[in-house]
């Protein structure tokens, strides 16, 4: 019988390997005779390298090779090739790898690395984005003009520190402001934060004697890694085989291109397998982090609450390299209007080089950045207008079928139900009810924030899938999307099971063993919440192709027209005469008649997907650059301790219009887990730099990520299902959206409860207490009195 599991709770296909620790990550893979790499990293934020002395290191026991920047004269990068494999001529941040020491054991390599001495000529570092764009600021990349970049997609400005200058213009903001009755003008800030995946980045590379190159890497995107690496190192694409085992967390860090080129070139030099595993402190200083942000925004509203004009300058602190962050700036810019109809828009979004940790994509990139200001602007404006935060959103939220985004893209009927999301948040959190705090010196408050996000990708971001039927009628699904905990492989298995009408256990997805570029079909990247949608569409096309092959055969066998063949419940039969039936297995390797004649041959379905009618964006930021939008939002109830400034999240409700729930278990897991990650970035996380650009907290003690003790008392998620017209079974992506609105929801709750503005994250106790002290000192003194009288009561 058919078993429809769509929308039910289905454990991830690799759960048993995970609970027993037997899933093989690239971290666990070794080759006989492999060598180990230790990095020597820069102690200066900005310095010229006079010389590197490796003579002592190479003589150290167990050392096979020592390499410096001069050995590998390549530039690599996703959208702009701005990165060196090892520092050449100068170092650009504290942590910049200068030399790689290769030995027969990690201990030998680490010991020899201590013996490499580097002679530096310190240069003035640029550690502040606003100073970095002043005239005459020291340049982080003097040679920008010579870098290759993705023309039509980004716009670097050589001779400055601007790696990308993106503009979005709609209407005329000056007339919009002239028509406004209320103007909100604020500066918002976000620090650099670390992805902190539990599996550190690691690469095993082997340049084989036949000049094929094999790489095992903890990455998200096998094909982007292969193409970018091959192109930068002049390797024919099919001679580079990239194996991407399941990754122990990615969160954007492992998208694009990572440490593969360095490990490959070392292996090429030594002709032996080479493994590079970052230490946690290297992961937090030498590897990329999320961009920081300074945003100056000005928003005008008419007295009836209409959003008339929005002017914003986003200055993204891209750090020393911006090969992915150039698109973060672009994305921050083109989606700066969020879920709202804004009549006039003028946005300037800059990716700015500084002498800090290089940056890259992180979960939802561009959107945590632009929703942090936008969603707070809504609440501040509401307050000035005497409206409430819900009303002002109702007035300005996109109306599907009517609204037009800042890019000029229409908001389509099937894009989702933003008003439904808002209602679910208001109802779920009990927005109008007042809760009693646990102590008289604490305040309970509720706040919410909306979000919308589309995958941010180039217009040719394709996907493909293969479906095979095995001898016994079981099914193999092969796609190129990596597995990093997001659950896409399981969702693809559910889609295939539904399409053939078989139990999900009968479908095998290849990602259990990882993706290999020589065995799996292409998908652009495992990013942007695009996997389920893009690979899902390709998969359904592959299934249709396989079914057609079966129908061809069945038409001959049953002697009925092809169109009359049904394939359901794992069975094949004429629609009109269902009593004549055969199994999928009878066609798997072609149909064999009783006399041995065989027709058809093995069934193998293929399907491809490309974004439909997508374009580049023009100089005003206009064009059609998205494939679907997911609307959502976060509502929180927080308790603020007026004496300490500590903010605790008591209750959370998130709502998302996912189009169609494919796997409720994964979806809830994403919503809950994404909230936790969002809460970490909102309340705790910040890479701290000193005045010389040194990182003060490169470890998991002083860089605090949420633990189980930080769980809110109640956490819930609501899923709306406005089907995505072209989505697989109506579904759209969700993996990143779950953290985007968290920080502004918490800040809005604090503002609603205390009328204290917090324009900068993390909203840790110190910052919150200082903000209260500055803006509402009377709250602290009265809380203190409350506490004092309580203490007296207890004492008596």
């Amino acid at each position, binding site marked *: 019988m058919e078993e429809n599991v769509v929308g039910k*709770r289905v*454990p*991830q296909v*690799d*759960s*048993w*390997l*995970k*609970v*027993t*620790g*037997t*899933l*093989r*990550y690239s*971290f*666990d893979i070794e080759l006989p005779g492999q060598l180990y790499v230790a990095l020597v990293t820069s102690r200066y934020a900005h310095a010229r390298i006079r010389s590197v002395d490796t003579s002592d290191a190479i003589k150290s026991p167990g050392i096979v090779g020592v390499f410096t920047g001069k050995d590998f004269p390549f530039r690599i990068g996703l959208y702009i090739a701005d990165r060196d494999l090892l520092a050449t001529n100068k170092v650009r941040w504290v942590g910049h790898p200068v030399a790689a020491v290769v030995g027969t054991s990690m201990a030998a390599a680490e010991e020899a690395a201590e013996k490499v001495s580097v002679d530096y000529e310190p240069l003035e570092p640029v550690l502040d984005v606003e100073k970095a764009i002043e005239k005459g600021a020291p340049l982080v990349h003097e040679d920008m003009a010579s870098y290759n970049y993705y023309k039509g997609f980004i716009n670097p400005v050589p001779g400055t520190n601007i790696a990308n200058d993106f503009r979005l213009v709609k209407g005329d903001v000056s007339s919009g402001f002239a028509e406004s009755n209320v103007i909100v003008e604020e500066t918002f800030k976000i620090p650099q934060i670390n*992805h*902190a*995946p*539990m*599996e*550190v980045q690691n690469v095993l590379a082997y340049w084989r004697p036949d000049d094929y190159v094999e790489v095992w890497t903890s990455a998200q995107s096998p094909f982007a890694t292969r193409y970018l690496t091959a192109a930068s190192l002049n390797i024919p694409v099919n001679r580079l085989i990239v194996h991407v085992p*399941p*990754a*122990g*967390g*990615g*969160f954007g860090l492992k998208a694009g291109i990572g440490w593969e080129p360095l490990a490959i070139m070392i292996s090429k030099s030594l002709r032996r397998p080479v493994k590079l595993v970052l*230490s*946690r402190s290297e992961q937090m200083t030498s590897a990329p982090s999320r961009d920081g942000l300074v945003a100056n925004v000005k928003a005008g509203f008419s007295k009836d609450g209409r959003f008339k004009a929005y002017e914003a300058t986003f200055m993204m602190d891209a750090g020393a390299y911006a090969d992915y962050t150039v698109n973060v700036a672009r994305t921050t810019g083109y989606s700066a209007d969020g879920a709202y109809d804004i009549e006039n828009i003028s946005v300037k979004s800059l990716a700015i080089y500084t002498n800090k940790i290089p940056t890259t994509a992180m979960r939802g990139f561009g959107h945590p950045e632009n929703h942090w200001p936008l969603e707070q602007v809504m609440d501040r404006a509401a307050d000035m207008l005497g409206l409430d935060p819900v009303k002002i959103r109702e007035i300005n939220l996109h109306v599907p079928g009517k609204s037009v985004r800042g890019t000029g893209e229409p908001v389509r009927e099937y894009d989702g139900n933003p008003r439904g999301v808002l209602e679910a948040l208001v109802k779920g959190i009990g927005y109008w009810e007042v809760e009693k705090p646990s102590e008289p010196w604490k305040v309970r408050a509720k706040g919410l924030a909306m979000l919308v996000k589309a995958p941010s990708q180039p217009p040719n971001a394709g996907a493909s899938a293969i479906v095979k039927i095995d001898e016994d009628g079981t099914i193999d699904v092969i796609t190129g999307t990596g597995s*990093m*905990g*997001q*659950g896409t492989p399981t969702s693809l298995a559910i889609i295939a099971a539904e399409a053939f009408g078989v139990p999900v256990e009968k479908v095998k997805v290849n990602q259990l063993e990882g993706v290999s570029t020589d065995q799996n079909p292409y998908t652009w990247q495992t990013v942007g919440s695009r996997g389920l949608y893009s690979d899902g569409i390709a998969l359904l096309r592959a299934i249709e192709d396989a079914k057609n092959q079966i129908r061809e055969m069945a038409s001959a066998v049953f002697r009925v027209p092809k169109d009359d063949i049904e394939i359901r419940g794992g069975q094949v039969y004429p629609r009109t005469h269902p009593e004549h039936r055969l199994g999928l297995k009878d066609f798997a390797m072609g149909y064999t008649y009783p006399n041995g004649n065989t027709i058809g041959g093995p069934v193998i379905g293929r399907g491809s997907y490309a974004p439909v009618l997508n374009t580049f964006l023009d100089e005003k930021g206009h064009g059609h650059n998205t494939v679907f939008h997911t609307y959502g939002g976060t509502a929180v109830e927080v308790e603020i301790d007026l004496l300490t400034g500590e903010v605790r999240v008591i209750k959370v409700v998130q709502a998302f219009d996912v189009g169609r729930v494919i796997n409720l*278990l*994964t979806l*809830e*897991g*994403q919503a*809950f*887990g*994404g*909230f*936790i*990650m969002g809460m*970490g970035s909102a309340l705790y996380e910040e890479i701290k730099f000193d005045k010389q650009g040194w990182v003060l907290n490169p*470890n*998991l*003690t002083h860089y605090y*990520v*949420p*633990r*189980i*003790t*930080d*769980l809110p008392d109640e*956490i819930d998620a609501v899923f709306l299902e406005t089907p995505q017209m072209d989505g697989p079974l109506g579904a759209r992506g969700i993996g990143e959206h779950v953290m985007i609105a968290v920080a502004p929801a918490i800040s809005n709750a604090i503002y609603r409860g205390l009328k204290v503005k917090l324009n900068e994250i993390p909203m840790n106790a110190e910052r919150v207490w200082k903000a209260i002290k500055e803006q509402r000192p009377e709250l602290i003194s009265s809380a203190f009195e409350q506490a004092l009288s309580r203490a007296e009561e207890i004492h008596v």
Partner: protein
Amino acid sequence: MREIRLRINGIERELHVEDNETLLEALRNRAGVTSVKAACWRGECGLCTVLLNGRPVKSCSTLAVEADGKTVETAEGLYFDKRAKGLMESFVRNGATQCGFCTPAFVVASHALLLRNPKAEDEDIKEGLKGLICRCGTYVNMMRAVKEARQYYADGKQTA
């Protein structure tokens, strides 16, 4: 170098280890036990948690020589323990895994917690698992899994 004898996941092993070698290094590099993970190598993240004579320890902060003559269990070995297998089933059923890199350590720590306190409530579970990090934030699902698994530990007897 010195020789140690220990029982790893039910099998007697002899390993030659350095005096300053950690139990984590010995397990992964010499015994080939990759179900024990590592993410910080300095006692911050808890992902290298194993049972040493039935007690949870961070193997990155334990010397291999300290395990001489003792039993060491990791998640792959707990698969053979009836109650731990029930716990694993609860993890699977409740979606308490995302990327899965921290999962074996959380299974080991939860098993130790439930052996000690089969009636663990929310606060006990938080206390028992706060030394470990799950960056995917699967904590809600883990709470559900551990609470559901209490049924398998209800008889209160300790396994060796």
